[in-house]
């Protein structure tokens, strides 16, 4: 199955990535080839075969319900690109165009 540029645009939107027209073109062709490669799995009969998501034996890991020390707030803020009064600063969620409408 080849993938269309429209589908690639949709997936990019889900993944919060943007591509230029050139990149989109290139990615569509590369992803198409990769998808062709992974489609060889179609020839494997998997009827009734269980799904493996993880090879660890454990299912649920429990611990005692006791309080443990957390992180220092200033330390946690150390790598924040922009902050003010101990809060993480981001631009307006609704952009100006919509806010003014």
């Amino acid at each position, binding site marked *: 199955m080849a993938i269309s540029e429209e589908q690639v645009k949709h*997936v990019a939107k889900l993944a*919060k990535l943007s591509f230029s027209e050139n990149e989109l073109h290139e990615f569509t062709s590369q992803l198409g*080839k990769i998808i062709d490669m992974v489609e060889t*799995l179609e020839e*494997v009969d998997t009827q009734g*075969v269980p799904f493996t998501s993880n090879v660890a034996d454990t299912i649920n890991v429990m611990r005692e319900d006791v309080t443990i020390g957390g992180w220092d707030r200033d330390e946690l803020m150390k*790598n924040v690109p922009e902050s003010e009064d101990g809060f993480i600063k981001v631009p307006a969620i609704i952009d100006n165009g919509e806010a003014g409408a």
Partner: protein
Amino acid sequence: MTELFNKSIEELHSLLISKEITATDLTAETFARIKETEPQIESFLALNEEKAHDLAQAIDRKGITESNVLSGIPIGIKDNIVTKDLRTTAASKILGNFDPIYDATVMDKVYQADLIPVGKLNMDEFAMGASTETSYFKKTKNAWDQTKVPGGSSGGSAAAVAAGQVPVSLGSDTGGSIRQPASFNGIVGLKPTYGRVSRYGLIAFASSLDQIGPMTRTVKDNALVLNAISGFDAKDSTSAGVSVPDFAAGLTGDIKGMKVALPKEYMGEGIQPGVRDAVLKAADTFRALGATVEEVSLPHSKYGVAVYYIIASSEASSNLQRFDGIRYGFRSEHITNLEDVYVNSRSEGFGEEVKRRIMLGTFSLSAGYYDAYFKKAGQVRTLIKQDFDQVFNQYDLIIGPASPTVAFGIGENINDPITMYMNDILTIPVNLAGLPGMSVPAGFSEGLPVGLQIIGKHFDEATMYKAAYAFEQATDFHKKQPVILGGGKA
């Protein structure tokens, strides 16, 4: 002072014990060696010089303990392992300014063992690649031939050990990222059983496949380091509560009666003749040592790459959602609203290969495609696992090549993702099944090292080390050294 850079951990330890050298001397010499060779190899992204010096002095004050062979030994750390206050980038622009506020569990263990972390090693961006060429920062060179790639993704970790910059490094392996670069650089690299080593503080690529493991110049060194980094960790709920044996204890050289399997699928099309010859000779060496080697079949191995690219990319697309420009890492300057922070920070911060995998993973998990791709891949993963289970009902170990080829040229495959992906065809099934796998030096082809892959049963690294040690002692491959270590041409 004698040249320390090509000595094993045990040799360095006896020099430290006899006080011929101090940990401070060894650390200073290590940084001198790194600085001398770095223009050729370019394996380090960050050096930890000041802190390493302080650690060495503290160890010297305390005195080297005879019982701890790792005390005062320098170690290099792959840059996807978080190190407190030491820049950790996963070789990505998006983490280019990231200084972790905590240590990975393996780092806690490194400090407990009195190992001295000297710096952070280059890799493919977020461990996605097989040549270390997808690093945002630099191109690491193969220790044997600087026109060749070091392999990947732990290319910096492999080249640094092979070039004598450090006696040991930590790498990580999601689909072959320890074994293939170990093979390309003629060193020993082991990916432990899934769950053997804590993943806490390993920047996640594919959580059901990732493992941290040691890279060294000898089998025994490797076992000694795995001893130190293994064990259950409450901070990683997939780490296993199984006991950790002394992996160095069984290195007797005696493997009489061991039952070894050689899968025919690992010796077929696409394997370079020089690589195939080296593995066949290795099989003869095992026979000469008293083991039996028989051909077996792992019929679903050929689907490994397809299964892997769906599963690993799907997990990556989920894991890498956290890089959004909000709390840490790179934030785009081209922003007018919150959506721009996410989209532009990610689009400008991730490299091409990482975006390709995020896209493939998002596609595989998206509505309408989940059953055909992600679910199907998880089912074929079960079949791959069952293939191994059947062989391990009758055999102790599986051997084969670690990589279909020797190291290729820098720039040769970077524009052809599928050819690059096929590099991992022999290592990927091991991750999918959660098994331990290692690469040990097994000869040369075209003047470049060939690695023999040894695959063991779950949590049976001890048998792998035993066999690898016997093989190493019976052969001379590990004694050949690249020119940069003082050796002649292979």
